[in-house]
C-alpha cells in the first residue's frame, strides 16, 4: 500500500522538480501546487497509475484569484491538485480529455464560480435554474443570494416534429423518479438513442448557506442534503472539521458512529432493492422489502432518538450513548433480518422474471467504470473494487473485519446483488461493533472556533463514496464547504449505459444506481 503512495509523489517530484510544490499530508495523501501545470501533473499521474480518477473539483474564492482544487484518487492515494486563475479572466484548460469523468464536475464549477474550462464550455446553466441571471456566480464571496433578481422563466421546450423520433421526457415529475430531475430520452421505436440530463431541480444552495452558519448548525444543515444517507453526510462534515481541529475522537464514539453509518446503509439498501422491484412491476417484492425495512428504522430511532434524521453525529463524538439494555434488542432485530436474507437472495438470483429483466442489461464495463470515475455499488458491480471503508479506513472500520463485495458482470443485476450481499456484511459489522464496543466517553469537547486550515473527508455512503471538503478561516463559520455526492458521480454511467437500451429497461437501469437527486443538487 505504502509503496504506491510514495511512487506517485516520487514520480511527480522527479518529473517536475521544483516546478510544483508537494505538501504531504494535506488534502489526503498530498496536496500539490501545480502552478499552471495541472494537466501535465494529471497526465503523469494517469500514466503512473491507470486507476487514477477524479473525485471532485472544488472551486474557491481567494479574494483576487479564484482557486480550483482537483481532488484526484489513485489506487491507494488521494491528492489535491491546486490551480489558481485571476478573477478577471477565469479560464482553465479542461481535463475531460484526460479523465472523461470530470465532465460534470467542471460544469458545476463553471456554473457556481464562473471558471470556464476551455474545451468544455458551459451553455446556459447546469445546476442553477434557467432564470438565474447570467454573470452572477453564487458561490463567490461578493454575491448575496438574497439580492439576486431572477429573470423571466424560459419558454417551454419544443418537441421535434420528426415522426420517427419520439422524445420521451422522464421527469421532472414522473412515477419512476421519486425526486424531481429531468431526463430527455430520445427513442426510435423503443430503442434509446440519446439521453440529455437536466439536474438542479432541488438545488437548495446548501454549500452557500453553510458558509453563513456556525459549525454546529452546519452539522444539521448538511444532514438535510439527503434524508436517506443523512448520517453519512453529517459524518463527512464532522470528519473534515475534526481533521482541521486535530481532534481525537474517543474509541467508543468511533464504534457508535460505525453502527449509525451501517444502519444507514442497511435501510438505504433495503429501500433500493424494494424500489427496483417496483420499477420492473414486481410489487410484491417491493412490499416485502419495505416491510422489513421498518424494524431498521425503529433501530435508528432506538439508537439516536429520531427515525429519519438521526442527528447523532457531532463534532468530537456522538450526541448519545448506547444503553447496554438496548443491545439485545438490536441484536434480535438484526438476526431476524439476517434470517430473511437467504430468501431475498434466492429471489434475486433465481426468480426468472427478475433475471429476464436485469441480467445483461445496462452493462458498464470495468474500463468505462474507471474512466467515468463511478463510485460505490455501481463501480463494485463492474468489478472495480473501490470502497473507502477498505481503501482509506475511517473511524473503526480498520479494526472490523468485513468483505468487500465485487461482482464482475457490470449489469443491473450485478449492481443490485452487490447491495444484496452488503446487507449481510452490514449486519455482521454492526454485530461485531456491538460485541467489541470499548468503554469510555462518547464525546470530547471541542472549541467553537475552528482554526485556519482545510481538510477533506471521505465516507462510504450507501450509494458510494461521499466527499467533503471544509475550509476554516478561524471564525465560528466555515469559509467553504464542498460536497460531492455519490449520485453526482454515477449519473454519467447511466447516460452511457442507457444508449441502445429498450425504453422499458431505462427505469430498472436507472434505479440500479440508487439515484438520489436531493444529494445530487444539494
Amino acid at each position, binding site marked *: 500500500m505504502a509503496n504506491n503512495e510514495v511512487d506517485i509523489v516520487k514520480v511527480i517530484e522527479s518529473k517536475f522538480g521544483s516546478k510544483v510544490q508537494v505538501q504531504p499530508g494535506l488534502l489526503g495523501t498530498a496536496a500539490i501546487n501545480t502552478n499552471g501545470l495541472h494537466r501535465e501533473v494529471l497526465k503523469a499521474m494517469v500514466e503512473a497509475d491507470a486507476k487514477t480518477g477524479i473525485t471532485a473539483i472544488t472551486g474557491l474564492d481567494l479574494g483576487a484569484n479564484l482557486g480550483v482544487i482537483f481532488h484526484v484518487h489513485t489506487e491507494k492515494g488521494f491528492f489535491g491538485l491546486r490551480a489558481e486563475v485571476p478573477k478577471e479572466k477565469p479560464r482553465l484548460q479542461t481535463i475531460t480529455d484526460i479523465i472523461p469523468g470530470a465532465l460534470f464536475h467542471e460544469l458545476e464549477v463553471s456554473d457556481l464560480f464562473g471558471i470556464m474550462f476551455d474545451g468544455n464550455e458551459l451553455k446556459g446553466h447546469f445546476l442553477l435554474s434557467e432564470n438565474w441571471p447570467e454573470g452572477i456566480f453564487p458561490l463567490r464571496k461578493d454575491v448575496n443570494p438574497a439580492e439576486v433578481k431572477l429573470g423571466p422563466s424560459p419558454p417551454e421546450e419544443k418537441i421535434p416534429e420528426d415522426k420517427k423520433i*419520439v*422524445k*420521451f421526457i422522464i421527469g421532472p415529475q*414522473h412515477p419512476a423518479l421519486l425526486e424531481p430531475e429531468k431526463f430527455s430520452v430520445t427513442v426510435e421505436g423503443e430503442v434509446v438513442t440519446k439521453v440529455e440530463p437536466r439536474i438542479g431541480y432541488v438545488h437548495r444552495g446548501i454549500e452557500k448557506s453553510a458558509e453563513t452558519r456556525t459549525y454546529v448548525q452546519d452539522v444539521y444543515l448538511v444532514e438535510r442534503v439527503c434524508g436517506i444517507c443523512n448520517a453519512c453526510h453529517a459524518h463527512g462534515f464532522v470528519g473534515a472539521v475534526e481533521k482541521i481541529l486535530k481532534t481525537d475522537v474517543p474509541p467508543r464514539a468511533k464504534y457508535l458512529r460505525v453502527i449509525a453509518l451501517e444502519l444507514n446503509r442497511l435501510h438505504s439498501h433495503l429501500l433500493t432493492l424494494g424500489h427496483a422491484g417496483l420499477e420492473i412491476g414486481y*410489487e*410484491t417484492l417491493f*412490499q416485502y422489502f419495505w416491510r422489513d425495512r421498518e424494524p431498521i428504522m425503529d433501530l435508528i430511532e432506538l439508537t439516536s432518538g429520531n427515525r429519519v434524521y438521526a442527528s447523532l453525529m457531532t463534532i468530537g463524538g456522538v450526541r448519545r450513548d448506547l444503553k447496554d439494555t438496548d443491545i439485545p434488542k438490536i441484536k434480535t432485530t438484526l438476526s431476524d433480518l439476517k434470517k430473511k436474507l437467504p430468501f431475498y437472495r434466492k429471489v434475486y438470483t433465481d*426468480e426468472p*422474471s427478475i433475471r429476464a*429483466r436485469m441480467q445483461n442489461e445496462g452493462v458498464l464495463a470495468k474500463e468505462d467504470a474507471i474512466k467515468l470515475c463511478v463510485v460505490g455499488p455501481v463501480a463494485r458491480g463492474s468489478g472495480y473494487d473501490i470502497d473507502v471503508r477498505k481503501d482509506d479506513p475511517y473511524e473503526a472500520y480498520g479494526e472490523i473485519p468485513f468483505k468487500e463485495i465485487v461482482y464482475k458482470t457490470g449489469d443491473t443485476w450485478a449492481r443490485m446483488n452487490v447491495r444484496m450481499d452488503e446487507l449481510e456484511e452490514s449486519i455482521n459489522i454492526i454485530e461485531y461493533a456491538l460485541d467489541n464496543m470499548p468503554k469510555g466517553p462518547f464525546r470530547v469537547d471541542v472549541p467553537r472556533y475552528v482554526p485556519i486550515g482545510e481538510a477533506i473527508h471521505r465516507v462510504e455512503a450507501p450509494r458510494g463514496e461521499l466527499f467533503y471538503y471544509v475550509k476554516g478561516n478561524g471564525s465560528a463559520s466555515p469559509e467553504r464547504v464542498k460536497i460531492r455526492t455519490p449520485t453526482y458521480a454515477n449519473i454519467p454511467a447511466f447516460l452511457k449505459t442507457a444508449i441502445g437500451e429498450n425504453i422499458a429497461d431505462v427505469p430498472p437501469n436507472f434505479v440500479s444506481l440508487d439515484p438520489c437527486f436531493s444529494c445530487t443538487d444539494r
Partner: protein
Amino acid sequence: MAVDFWLIARILIFPGFTFILLLTLFCDWIERKLEARIQNRVGPMVAGPAGLFQPLADFIKLLTKEEIEPRNAKKIVFKFAPLAAFAMMVFAMCFLPIDGGSVISTSGFPGDLVVILTFSTIASFMLFLSGWASSNPYGTISSARVLTQFLGYDIPLFILALTPAFIAGSLSIFAIASYQVTKVVPFIIMAPWAFILFLITIQAELEKDPFDVPDAESELVGGIETEYTGAKLAFLHLTRDVQIVFGAALIVELFLGGPYGPVIGGLPAFWYSLWFVLKLLAVVIVTEYVTTLFARLRIDQVLSANWKIILPLAVLSLMLTVAMITWVYPVL
C-alpha cells in the same frame, strides 16, 4: 306487440347488467384483498365490511370528478371509446350461460363463441383507440403496446378456444358448456394441456403481470389512461375489470363445465349461478396469485414469448386434441 318484462328484467337485473356489474366489483375487491394479503398488507378496509364496497366507492368517486379534455385530443373518439369498450365487454358477457341459459335466452346460436371472442377483441381495440386519441406520448406508446400485444395473443387464444369446440363438436358456448355436463368430465381433465396454455394466454390478453407492459407505470405513467379523468376514467377502469371477469368466465365456460353442477333442491337457476360464481372466483384467485408472483416482462420478451412459445404450443395442443378425439376419447 307485448312488452316482454321477463326479458327486460333478465337483461337489466339478473343475470344481465346489474349482476355483471356487481360481480365485477366483487371480483375487483377479491383481487385487491388477495393481492394485499399476499403482500403483507391489509388492503381495502374502510368502505363496508372489510372494505367490500371500496370498488363501488372508487367508481362513484371517479364519476363525480371533473372531466378534462386535452386540447389536442381527438374529441369524439376520446369521449366514446371508453364507453364503447365497456359496452362491448358487457354485451359479450350476455352470451355466456350464467344461470343455465345465457342472458338473452334466445340469443344463443351456433358460432357464438367466435362472436364473443370478436367482441372482446373489438373492446381491446377500443382501449387502443382511447389511448391513441388522447394525443399524449405515454398514451400513444401504451396504446401501441396494447395493439401489438392483443393482436399477437388473439391468435393463440382463438386456436386454444377451438380445443373445447372440437371436443364438443360445436362452436356454440351453450353446447360446449352443457357437453361437459352430459359427459360428466369437464375439459380441464380431458385436455389439461390446453387449459394451462389458455390460462397463460388469458393472462396476457388481460394485460396482467407478467404481461402488463401496456400499463407499466414506471415507464408510461398512466399508460392509455394518462389523460383520462372523471367518468371516462371510471369506465376505463370498469372495462379493465369486466375484461378480467370475462376472461375468467370464458375459462369457466370452456374448461370448467360452465355454470352446471349438482342441484341440491330448489331452483336450478340459483344453483347454476352459485356454481358459476364460485368457479369464476377460483379462476380469478389463480390469475391474481400469478400476478403477484412475477415481475413485468419487457415488450419484446412478451412478444417473443407469444410467437416463439405460446403460438407453436397452441398449434401442437390443437393437433394433440384432434388426435385424442380421433383415437383416444372414443375408447374411454
